């Protein structure tokens, strides 16, 4: 099992998932995630738990596509409008709830890659989560300045921008999600 220090050294996307769904012993569930342009407040992506795909349908697709249900439920495919690549500042909002027990120290590490190379890393410690609480985290990020050439390259390379998101409680990895980005 990987620790925060180890995942911080990862130089490329992981092959598969580094933990299993059952490692989430704390009942942590994501309820909402939204990405907005900071300057205009325009929302470019929003997903809430109620929009989540139906598991029974997923298992059908899974058997056809060859990947397991476990993998499908923790893979997100983002289709973002291409203006996103020109945003100067982005605001993200994450809402999650936790189960009936205390969560002593919750931390997220997210690593972004483009064509297999590390682009950037986000590391945030939420710390303690109150039993049965619903929590939100709103963050503001400066985006890298992309040249027109880079923008065109990213638009022309769907799913080459990927991320691995690791969630830890203390030193213990409890969730791992993957994302693929395409710009349209």
């Amino acid at each position: 099992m990987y620790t925060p220090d180890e995942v911080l050294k990862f130089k490329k996307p992981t092959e598969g998932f580094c933990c299993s769904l059952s490692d989430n012993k704390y009942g942590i569930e994501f309820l909402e995630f939204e990405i907005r342009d900071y300057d205009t407040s325009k929302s470019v992506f929003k997903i809430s738990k109620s929009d989540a795909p139906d598991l029974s349908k997923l298992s059908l697709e899974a058997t056809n596509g060859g990947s397991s249900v476990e993998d499908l439920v923790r893979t997100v495919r983002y289709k973002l409008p291409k203006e996103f690549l020109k945003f100067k500042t982005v605001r993200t909002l994450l809402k999650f709830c936790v189960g009936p027990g205390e969560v002593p120290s919750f931390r997220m590490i997210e690593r972004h890659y483009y064509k297999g190379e590390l682009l950037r890393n986000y590391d945030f410690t939420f710390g303690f989560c109150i039993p049965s609480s619903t929590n939100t985290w709103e963050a503001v990020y400066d985006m890298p300045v992309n040249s027109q050439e880079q923008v065109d390259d990213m638009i022309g390379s769907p799913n080459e921008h990927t991320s691995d998101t690791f969630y830890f409680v203390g030193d213990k990895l409890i969730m791992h999600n993957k994302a693929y980005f395409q710009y349209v």
Partner: protein
Amino acid sequence: MGLLTVIKKVKAKEKEIRLLMVGLDNAGKTTIVKNLCGEDVSKTSPTLGFEIKTLAHNGYKLNIWDVGGQTTLRSYWRNYYEQTEGLIWVIDSTDVRRLEDCKRELHKLLVEERLAGATLLIFANKQDVSGAQSQEDLLKALELDKMGERHWRIVSCSGVTGEGVGKGLDWVVEDIAARIYMFNN
């Protein structure tokens, strides 16, 4: 109002400051944070955990932790004291009935060792409501005479109109910055 102008972009290398926002439920904590972020303050719902906002202010990256104030949640506040550089205590200045409660909870925080070095800003909120207690009256009622070395200040404000909110935040950030970033500016 100009509050939007105080929030600038967060730069990667910015110095971080951790602020903890507490007070009784319904004091107006979430409304004040929303106002600081230039958001619509007309709808807040009770905070059933924490709401963290990161925003940039005068060259500092602020992480504001707004933690719910219901009786059942108060015993968990202590889990957020570690590394807190600034404590923002919000009072509903119209809630005379619970002033005694408010005083007791605030005094509990003041004796916390892990908060001993934290700058304290007290927001006397809801000043837009007629009949709200003045900050002088509140100070008397809260019996804040044994503050020792602590850096603290009370500021009248309204989370709804935004009056006083930016002034309070400016003060707390400046005070903390002078204390912790004095040598590496």
